[in-house]
């Protein structure tokens, strides 16, 4: 991987971090309403995994999908606009925070209800295969979502059909307020691949290089027609589950311990050590991205809200 490219990952991780911080701020100001599910702390998974996809590949994500959408190249303005419910949004504001999609770039689903991210992604993978392309699909879900039946239904079908798909579990240790171990029989979710005769791989979700490498291998396998892979990325969310959650249920010091392995800090140190970034570059980069974030939010906010009449055209195609 070229130094430039990896510096690009750094920029993207910072962009996601500052975007999510800004969302929190806009929420407090009432510019964003309803609910949001932020991903600070999980940036290396989005950037490492999504970045490994080709343009022709398909992607499905979840309500905690801002990071994936930005990593996939969605502009911050389109993302902010969607969260603000304005026509500047990727879905012209009808979808909201939980539904960041961009069909023009094959980001074909962001799911607010748990389950279909994997089955719908599998549909895209099978479609690519049946249409004779060599596109693959990548689908995300969280640790808690591995307990709903559709997760296993999708894994079984993908394995039986040798589908070109990469399943990624972002194990951030909590499903809403519940720690993984209180709801889930296994600690390593990659184990669940065994029930479906599929390779299951664990990767350090705080290490963007590791995530990138692991997903590239899985994508290559899928593209070669050798079938699906289940990747478990061990990571952590800094914020509560959603806007209203102070996350008091977390043990003393857990958050702090994870912040010691902050994916952005880890990667920054690496790049500096490698000489790809100078000490000063980072601060400059952060400052520049902050300006971009603020500008994007402002541009997004200037757009109008769609009219009810226009919205009705979205219900039926014919």
């Amino acid at each position, binding site marked *: 991987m070229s130094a430039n490219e990896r510096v690009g990952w750094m920029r993207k991780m910072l962009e996601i971090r500052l975007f999510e911080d800004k969302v929190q701020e806009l929420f407090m100001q009432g510019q964003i309403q309803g609910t949001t599910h932020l991903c600070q702390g999980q940036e290396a998974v989005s950037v490492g995994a999504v970045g490994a996809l080709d343009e022709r590949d398909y992607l499905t994500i979840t309500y905690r999908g801002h990071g994936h959408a930005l990593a996939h190249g969605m502009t911050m303005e389109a993302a902010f606009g969607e969260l603000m419910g304005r026509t500047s949004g990727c879905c012209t504001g009808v979808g909201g925070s939980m539904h960041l999609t961009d069909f023009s770039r094959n980001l074909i689903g962001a799911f607010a209800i748990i389950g279909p991210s*994997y089955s719908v992604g599998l549909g895209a993978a099978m479609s690519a295969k*049946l249409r004779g392309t060599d596109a693959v699909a990548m689908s995300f879900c969280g640790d808690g979502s591995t307990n709903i039946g559709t997760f296993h239904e999708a894994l079984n079908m993908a394995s039986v059909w040798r589908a070109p798909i990469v399943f990624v579990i972002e194990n951030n240790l909590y499903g809403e307020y519940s720690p993984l171990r209180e709801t889930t029989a296994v600690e390593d979710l990659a184990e669940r691949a065994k029930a479906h005769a599929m390779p299951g791989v664990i990767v350090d979700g705080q290490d963007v290089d590791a995530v990138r490498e692991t997903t590239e291998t899985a994508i290559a396998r899928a593209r070669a027609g050798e079938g699906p892979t289940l990747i478990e990325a061990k990571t952590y969310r800094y914020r509560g589950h959603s806007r209203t959650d102070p996350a008091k249920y977390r043990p003393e010091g857990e958050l702090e311990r994870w912040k010691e392995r902050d994916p952005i800090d880890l990667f920054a140190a690496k790049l500096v050590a490698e000489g790809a970034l100078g000490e000063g570059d980072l601060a400059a980069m952060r400052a520049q991205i902050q300006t971009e974030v603020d500008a994007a939010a402002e541009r997004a906010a200037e757009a109008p809200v769609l009219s009810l009449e226009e919205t009705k055209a979205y219900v039926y195609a014919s």
Partner: protein
Amino acid sequence: MSTRLEPQRAEPSAGVVQLTYREAIGTALEHELAADPTVLLMGEDVATAGGVFKTNEGLPEKFGLERIRNTPICENGFLGVALGMSVTGLRPVVEIMFSDFLPTAADALVNELPKFRFMSGGQCTVPVTVRSIGGATGRFGTQHSATGESWYIGLPGLKVATAATPAGAYSVLRAAIRDDDPVLFFEHKGLYGRKGQVMLGDDAIARIGEAAVLREGTDVTVVSTLLMADRSVTAAEALADDGISVEVVELRWLRPLDYDAIVASVEKTGRLLVVEEQVHAGGWGATVISELVQRGVPMGRPATLSLPDDILIAYAPELEDAIIPSVEAIAGQIRSVVEG
């Protein structure tokens, strides 16, 4: 890598033929599969032994096992797969064997298919057809006898269709598969053996939302679907000898619903009877009556013949027969509506 989808085939033979309801379904599938290589059929055992209801005879041989695809037992999962296929260039037809199994796929059916295009801000279309086989009289008991026809009529974004005759089955199913929106299409297992004249070919493809007048009459309008429409026609024929002239309107589409056809008929007959193989609460029958009343259509007091609200469908054949409206029961109800 090359496509696994069979190449386009010749335009299907047109003309009128005699087919069973079962054959009409199979022919509609065959013609759409032939017309468009992106159409495929998925479901449990759809490709084996002609499928559980023998509607798919010959399709695997003609179109191959990639396009006529057996699935594991996981309705919610494979309906999600169909959704993913539909937004990436394919037009899947999904068979959910018994309509009673639709609830096992209800998350995909209620929360995803109808809403997917909307939530995306109109970025995609969702050309999925769900075929589901419902209805009683088979002695299949409490969990395998529901028509399910009204369970999903309250979902903007979804279209809901049915068929009571072989001609309707061919015509409506082809329209459903061609439509760019998700369509839930109900078949009735009690009708598969029914024979009838079927007009084949593209000209026969139904217009979305259009009801069918199965029999014209002047004294009373019977609005119905599926097996109840079939039985209503038989009842109407019997009553003709007694000089009672019954118009039978088959609602082939429950969403969108053809109010104009109903209104036109009721304005002619002045009387309305709804016959449905479901309880009245929450069904299309109540919706039709409510709409007509709100429109102020003159019709005296509308009547209904539905499943009793205080019982479920039992296995015992005598009990099932007592619960499902018979031709005689329908005739009796028509008579009392007409004779007031």
